[in-house]
């Protein structure tokens, strides 16, 4: 009796043959001549780049008047489309969507199903590589400075760090700023060094760093909380 309702990942068979002779598995096997099956080492969706731990075999099959794209390595994902390419794009999007949703969750935020899906995804996608190569996007405040030239020359981020402006690599709007203009910027940073890779966009804002006396006044005007006097036992 065959019971297809229960999904079973039979990936281990393919994995074993891959380990035994990866070259044969990838290139020498008679099935490589099939145009409906191919090993995929990585893929990109928009700016997200996914590298796989090992080759993932992607297969296509016609179903009714459409194409379905699937991979036994991630058997719960499929893509359907009018063409093979469309079906493959749908498969990539399905994987990408789940990965991005789950990557933003802490383990305790995941239910059992999500945790299991995350384990499945990260057994195929190289998470370490993803984390080390995917830029971090931050929203930052900074002040434009002209220094000694007649156009925006640098940005002093609110953290105190200085960014030298390359007019060819920044949003054009940045070059319209006056000296001392504050901006809110979306910045792509290297995940390891945290250096700026690119300023994606900017928005001019009204802002200034308050003076010390203003900060002091502000602090003093804050309402005071009356705490109950009690004995603290640590």
């Amino acid at each position, binding site marked *: 009796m*065959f019971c297809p*309702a229960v999904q079973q990942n039979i990936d281990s068979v393919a994995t074993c043959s891959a380990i035994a002779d990866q070259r044969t598995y990838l290139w020498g096997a008679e099935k490589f001549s099939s145009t409906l099956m191919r090993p995929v080492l990585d893929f990109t969706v928009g700016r997200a780049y996914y590298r796989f731990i090992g080759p993932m075999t992607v297969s296509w099959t016609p179903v009714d008047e459409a194409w379905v794209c699937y991979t036994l390595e991630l058997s719960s994902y499929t893509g359907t489309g009018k063409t093979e390419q469309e079906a493959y794009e749908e498969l990539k999007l399905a994987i990408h969507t789940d990965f991005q949703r789950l990557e933003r969750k802490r383990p305790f935020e995941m239910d059992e199903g999500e945790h299991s899906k995350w384990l499945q995804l990260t057994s195929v996608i190289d998470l370490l590589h993803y984390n080390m190569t995917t830029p971090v996007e931050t929203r930052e405040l900074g002040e434009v400075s002209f220094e000694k030239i007649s156009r925006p020359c640098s940005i002093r981020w609110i953290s105190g760090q200085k960014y030298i402006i390359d007019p060819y690599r920044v949003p054009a709007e940045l070059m319209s700023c006056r000296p001392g203009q504050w901006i809110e910027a979306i910045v792509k940073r290297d995940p390891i060094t945290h250096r700026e890779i690119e300023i994606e966009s900017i928005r001019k804002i009204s802002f200034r760093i308050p003076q010390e006396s203003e900060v002091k006044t502000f602090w003093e005007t804050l309402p005071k909380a009356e705490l109950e006097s009690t004995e603290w036992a640590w």
Partner: protein
Amino acid sequence: MKFKKPPIVEAWIEFKVGLTDESVGWDESTAKELINKHFADFKQQEFFGLTEVKIDPKTANVLETRRSFERVRAFTEDRDQCVQGGRNLLVYNQIRQGEKEWPGYERLRDSAFDALQKYLDFRTLNTLVGVSLHYLDIVAIPKGKDGKIKLEDYFTVYPHLPDGAFGAISGFRVAMQLPQACKGGNMTLSIQSLPAFGPSEDKGRFSIDWHVTSDGKTHDVDSARQWLEQAHKDLRGVFVAGFTEQGFAIFEPEGR
């Protein structure tokens, strides 16, 4: 035997070519020239490379890296035919597209030999090392009311486990070598269940690969042609023996 709904999704003939008289190298530009010169209708081109890395198992240092061009794949505009060329390889694929009628073995054979001749002339090669014929079928079987499928009702070849401890099978992949099924060749039959395509899937799907390879005595085009006719006949015999009447009914045979 002709079917209204044949299970076939792809078939291909693969020729392994001898390199004893090779005088021109094989690289991406040669492959492009081959396709542009002889397969002008095959405009969608894909190029595959091969990287071999030798690693010291003790230190994990890379000792040697070798890159080579592996093959070109060129498709017709509607992707129903594909020609693949490698250094010692010519493959001709026929792919099912939508509800178009399957063009049949004869067209595949004729197109494949036509492509082979062009390849041999272009590469100035004369010898063959082997030929193979491959069919890829996808069989979709409706689930019963209990959501299950009795494999034995449809297939004569299927995995069987004794009742009791094993319970139901939810997925399988089996491959068998059948040395006596084809005269002058080796046949491999692989059957595999496919994952459900969506939660409301009401069918179980099975991928069946029929692969026959010549035993290495097909050294010229004529002997390859003869071998292929025999292989196709034998493969057809195995295909017919592989399904029950109920199984065949899914393909809606004509004149049966």
